[in-house]
């Protein structure tokens, strides 16, 4: 039962959002959890992941989806032009190697007031389950604890399990992270006619840097963004392009990244990462890359033409110099995020590139991993609400 009405104001007039809880109370409960989170990092999470989650739970971050979707909070007076209410049940499929997307999606969707059904990967480190356990252990009585108990169902099951069909049948909104095949199966298995679906499938990302914009801060950000997931993240750079640069500039940039690496990442990687990077270094050299290893063999960075296929190794970062035209031509068909370091980001030509290519996100490279209510070209979060036309 939706009993809390929250009013927002946009250029179209006031929109009222009907929720089963007081939004400020819920946001307060999520952000209040951060004091417990600062005390210990659960084993399942890396420190970086946990720190990102803590930051994600700030009140400003949690209010952002509402502001972006419905406008700024407004007074109770005035004309109302629309009402939004939760669609009912949102089902989310999380793949096996999913990282923080599970917990982040969970947090975002709890704000919508929908009932949530989440299916975790059957072979992966279970960050969503671990995060839910943490929440349940550290939340005292209140709106959020009640919501997680009654409105959130998280399960792990194998392909072919009958719970899959039940999830599909119950869902008013389906959100699928995974392969195209998995998404196709889920979206074509007896879904309710009025339900809607979103597929976040295999994507890759790049970083584009103009040589004059390659400050040490930009390179530090590049190291951090790449090192978290290497090639395995859909928002991680699979290639760095030095726009209108020379091979010499690419090599200089690589050498600066290598020099900065131990300053940015002090910890040694695990032994198998170091070994995998010894392999990557040799494989890259054999494949025509001019490759070098970062401190402690934490990564391998290769210089080569944009036409050269990168080797398939988790922590191999290829850097290519290229003309803008050539860089556009070599964008992969499944490009998602283009992380940028441009001298003049407001230059209209970047917007023209966003308009004429298939990129889904064009953001500063430090923001490449930032997950939000607009994802992969879809405002999926807003569409978890049904919108009612009103004229009152």
């Amino acid at each position, binding site marked *: 039962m939706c009993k809390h009405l929250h009013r927002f104001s946009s250029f179209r007039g006031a929109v009222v959002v009907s929720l089963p809880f007081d939004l400020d109370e819920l946001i307060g409960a999520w952000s209040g959890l951060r004091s417990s989170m600062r005390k210990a990092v659960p084993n399942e999470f890396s420190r970086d992941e946990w720190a990102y989650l803590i930051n994600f739970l700030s009140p400003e971050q949690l209010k952002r989806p509402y502001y972006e979707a419905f406008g700024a909070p407004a007074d109770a007076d005035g004309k109302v032009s629309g009402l939004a209410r939760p669609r009912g049940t949102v089902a989310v499929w999380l793949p096996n190697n999913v990282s923080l997307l599970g917990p982040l999606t969970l947090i975002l969707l709890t704000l919508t007031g929908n009932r949530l059904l989440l299916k975790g990967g059957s072979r992966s480190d279970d960050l969503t389950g671990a995060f839910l356990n943490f929440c349940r252990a550290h939340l005292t009585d209140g709106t959020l604890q009640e919501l997680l108990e009654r409105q959130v169902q998280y399960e792990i099951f194998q392909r072919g399990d009958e719970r899959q069909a039940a999830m599909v049948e119950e869902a008013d909104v389906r959100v699928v*992270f995974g392969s195209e095949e998995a998404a196709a199966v889920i979206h074509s298995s007896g879904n309710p006619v009025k339900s809607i679906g979103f597929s976040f499938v295999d994507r*890759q990302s790049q970083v584009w840097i103009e040589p004059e914009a390659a400050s040490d801060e930009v390179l530090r950000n590049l190291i951090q963004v790449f090192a978290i997931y290497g090639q*395995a993240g859909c928002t991680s750079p699979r290639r760095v392009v030095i726009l209108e640069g020379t091979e010499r500039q690419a090599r200089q940039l690589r050498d600066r990244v290598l020099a900065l690496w131990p300053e940015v990442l002090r910890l040694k990687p*695990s032994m198998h990462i170091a*070994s995998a990077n010894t392999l990557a270094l*040799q*494989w890259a050299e054999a494949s025509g890359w001019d490759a070098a290893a970062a401190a402690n063999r934490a990564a391998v960075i290769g210089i080569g033409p944009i036409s050269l296929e990168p080797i398939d190794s988790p922590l191999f970062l290829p850097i290519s110099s290229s003309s803008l035209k050539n860089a556009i031509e070599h964008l992969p068909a499944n490009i998602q995020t283009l992380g940028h370091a441009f001298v003049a980001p407001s230059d209209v030509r970047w917007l023209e590139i966003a308009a004429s290519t298939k990129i889904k996100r064009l953001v500063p490279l430090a923001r490449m991993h930032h997950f939000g209510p607009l994802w992969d070209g879809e405002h999926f979060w807003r569409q978890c609400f049904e919108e009612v036309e009103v004229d009152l």
Partner: protein
Amino acid sequence: MSALLDRPVYGPREDGEFLSEMEQLTLHHLAGCKLYKQIWRGWQSGGGVAGLPFLHVGLFKRLLFCTDGLAHERILQSSSTISSQPSQIILDKISSQLQSRSALAILKDFVGERKRPLLILDDSKSLRQRGTVSARMAAALSLSPLATSMHFLLADAGRPESMKWDDLRSALAANREFLIYGSTWLLWLSWGAGSMPEDIRRQLQSKRIHFVHSGGWKKLEHLRVNREEFDTRLTRELQPGSGVVDYYGLVEQVGVIYPLCEHGFRHVPIWADVLVRDPYTLQAVEDQIGQIQLMNTLAHGAPYHSVLSEDVGSIISGPCPCGRSGKRFELLGRIPQAEVRGCANV
């Protein structure tokens, strides 16, 4: 080609001669293998054994190395797993001859020189594959010079329970001593833990058998079988003088195997060498655990003469109580793996 092979396998080491042969072999591969040269184009001799180039073992799953100037015959293939490609090693006639001599010399030191029937816990299908030979079959066949006859005891190597008991009965009836080879998990599941007919069990009581196995214990981890139980179960009802030899070897180092000695160490033949490297700096280390590098002077057809493995171990100083001289090391297992996290790229 490798004069060292003419000497006693665990005799006094001739490190200068070994280094000289390895440097020549490295120059041979640099001249004849383009991929190898791309990786090690700046290499110069003079850095000692630790300065010799190596290839990471994982490269053989991704690239096919071949050195010009030799007649290449077949491809030796490791068993592939769900998650990985098999390693592929091009075999040539000269290297194969050296490798056979090497394996035989090492095995003789552990199982003796007497010829006897060789029972192989495998099926014979992979013998019939043209152009390739599996690592498991190559391991079994390395014992063939010590065999008076060979018998494949499984109807289907994928099913350890498919033992051909009648064939085994016939073989046991005709002889008193045997060699038995199986990969570690197959030997255990089909023989050690398998349900054996009572009449065969009685027949075995009068036999002397040397079991030889390789391939590692990973597939047995879930059964929690330890080495002591493994060895005891295999030999408890046999005649004295029976034994179990567990050896370590890589497809990428074919011909050089490292049986476990009675005191738990692996000994290095004089035509081979083993280094342990710090995985972060790749410096050779003497007194700490690290990544094992294996070398030998036998590989001419492709540059697999020096390979950095994904196994960890340490060099052990001082003489071994087993009496074998030369270098020895302790194998501690594979580098621990961890899942790579990403996002939706499944």
